[in-house]
């Protein structure tokens, strides 16, 4: 037991493996217990998590803002739709290819982004989010224009049984992607690459004096998060069997950023909170709106109003997001038992 604990304390790889296995087991158990509709929500949360985790590493660890991650998701989504729908590729190679393509798109975007700071980066990535979907319209022969592309739903393998529900299979696919993202990013944050990102974020001049290349570190962060966003988009297409411009509006990019900040910037657990919020909040606000008997004009807009109020209140009351708030609470609890903790450490 102590050996295991020692290994976990020393090795980032062991810790990330433990977390990944834990997350995978939890996903399998939960997807087995809940209804088909909840399985679909689980799948939705999983592809949001992939994109959010990539964005939280970019924004929280390397300090770059991106309003264009929805467009990077679209790159992954269209790649999968083209490869599965037109070329007849199998699921796993198509998703892997989607990650590769979005990484390739991320390289020039990241290189450009590394020259820009703050609002200039925000403006450029915003133009990227608005401009890229226009390609689907321009090359409508290839990308299907406004209607987009559709693919057949994924078929659960036969060894799972004939009556294995499709929704649970989709939750497993998206969940597997989310677990891979969790594993990779945990190691990125814990490695020298992550340390370089934080150094560049906190002080560019000091980081370059220490021998780090600021531009290369920032580009690397962007490419990693582009790959995660592409994977998220690919899983979105697999779950919805659809890739169309309407699925990747500017609002998607903005709500990704919102999820990252509300969950807790820079933290992978925060990305889980953010994914849960993005998946559940629209349903909750709609339910609340329908629980009152109001005129259609009011009830149609009430979910939007609640969402806006949540954002404003959360930013004023909990500026460091859910994870930041939890950390503060647990930090206080730990401080309250401070002496005992010190004694325990002293004896060990």
């Amino acid at each position: 037991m102590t050996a295991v604990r020692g290994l976990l304390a020393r090795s980032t790889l062991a810790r990330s493996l433990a977390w990944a296995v834990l997350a995978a087991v939890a996903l399998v158990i939960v997807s087995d217990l809940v209804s088909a509709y909840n399985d679909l929500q689980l799948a939705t949360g999983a592809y949001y998590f992939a994109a959010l985790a990539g964005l939280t590493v970019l924004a929280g660890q390397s300090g770059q803002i991106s309003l264009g991650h929805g467009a990077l998701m679209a790159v992954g989504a269209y790649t999968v739709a083209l490869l599965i729908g037109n070329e007849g590729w199998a699921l796993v190679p198509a998703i892997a290819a989607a990650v590769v393509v979005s990484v390739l798109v991320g390289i020039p975007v990241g290189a450009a982004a590394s020259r820009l700071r703050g609002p200039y980066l925000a403006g450029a990535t915003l133009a990227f989010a608005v401009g890229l979907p226009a390609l689907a319209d321009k090359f409508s022969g290839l990308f299907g224009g406004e209607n987009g592309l559709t693919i057949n739903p994924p078929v659960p393998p036969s060894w799972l049984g004939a009556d294995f529900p499709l929704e649970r299979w989709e939750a497993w696919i998206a969940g597997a992607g989310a677990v891979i993202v969790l594993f990779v990013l945990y190691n990125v944050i814990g490695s020298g690459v992550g340390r370089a990102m934080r150094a560049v974020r906190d002080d560019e001049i000091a980081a370059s004096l220490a021998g780090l290349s600021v531009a290369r570190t920032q580009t690397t962060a962007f490419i990693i998060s582009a790959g995660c966003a592409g994977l998220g988009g690919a899983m979105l297409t697999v779950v919805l069997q659809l890739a169309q411009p309407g699925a990747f509006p500017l609002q998607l990019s903005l709500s990704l950023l919102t999820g990252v900040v509300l969950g807790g910037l820079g933290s992978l657990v925060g990305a889980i909170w953010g994914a849960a919020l993005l998946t559940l909040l629209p349903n909750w606000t709609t339910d609340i709106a329908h629980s009152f008997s109001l005129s259609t004009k009011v009830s149609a807009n009430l979910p939007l109003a609640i969402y806006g109020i949540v954002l404003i209140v959360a930013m004023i009351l909990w500026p460091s997001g859910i994870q930041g708030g939890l950390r503060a609470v647990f930090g206080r609890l730990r401080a309250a038992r401070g002496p005992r903790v010190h004694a325990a450490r002293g004896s060990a």
Partner: protein
Amino acid sequence: MTKFIDLTLSGISDGAVYAAVALALVLIWRATRIVNFAQGAMLMVTTFIASAVINSSGHYWLGFVVALACGLVLGALVERVLIRPVEYAPPLNAVILTLGLYTLLVAIAGMIWGNTPRSFPPAFSLRGYEVGGTRLLFTPNDTFIVLVVIAVAVGLAALFRLTSLGLQMRASAFAPEVARLLGVRVARMFTVGWALAAVAGALAGVLVAPSVFLGPNSFDPILITGFVAAVLGGLDSPPGAVIGGVSLGVALSYVSGYAGSSLVPLAALVILVAVLMLRPGGLFAASAERRV
């Protein structure tokens, strides 16, 4: 040739509106280092109020003045109540807060006025000028738009350069601590900056409403282009906002006229990236972009 002239003139008219939106964003950026994503919703609300006043009173100019006054109050109120608590928080928090305000205002407008776009009267005729037998697309109302935006730009330049208030605002923006030591009420200057910006935004809303119609979401594309124009010009520079707005308006008008309107967002992206790669702080960036 007529097409070229038409495209140029309508580009200038569009660009004047982008310039007004860009000015609103630049004023807020200079005052509080925040990109105000709620600007589009704020000017949408003031334009709805103008529409209500015009419909009930029958006087266009009364609505025009009421919109600007409401903008002034709304801008000051938003800064005082919502922005003040996050002024010293991490920059992303203010971004999310303005996105929340945008969502809330759009929802409120939908509740009060419905989501179906409605028409909005222009200040002057929408019949194009006739030159030598051909009718241009450029209208007296476009002339009015361009002249008003020029007047606002000149007025702001005069305010910043010639008045004590302008000097205090510049001092608060670029050296808040020193300004505070010298007795400038920095927080109040921030409020003034937001109020002025909201007036410029309200103006843009009233000017552009006849051509885009008036609905909770109808100003979103203009705000996005206005933001791109502001970044293009350099967010610290009001003249940059005007030049960025007008040149972007003309360029996008050519793209839309000669290559098709579906390419406009893509063209905006290409222009912005091309300019930012050469000048990462925009066309009118202060000389030292990075102190390394």
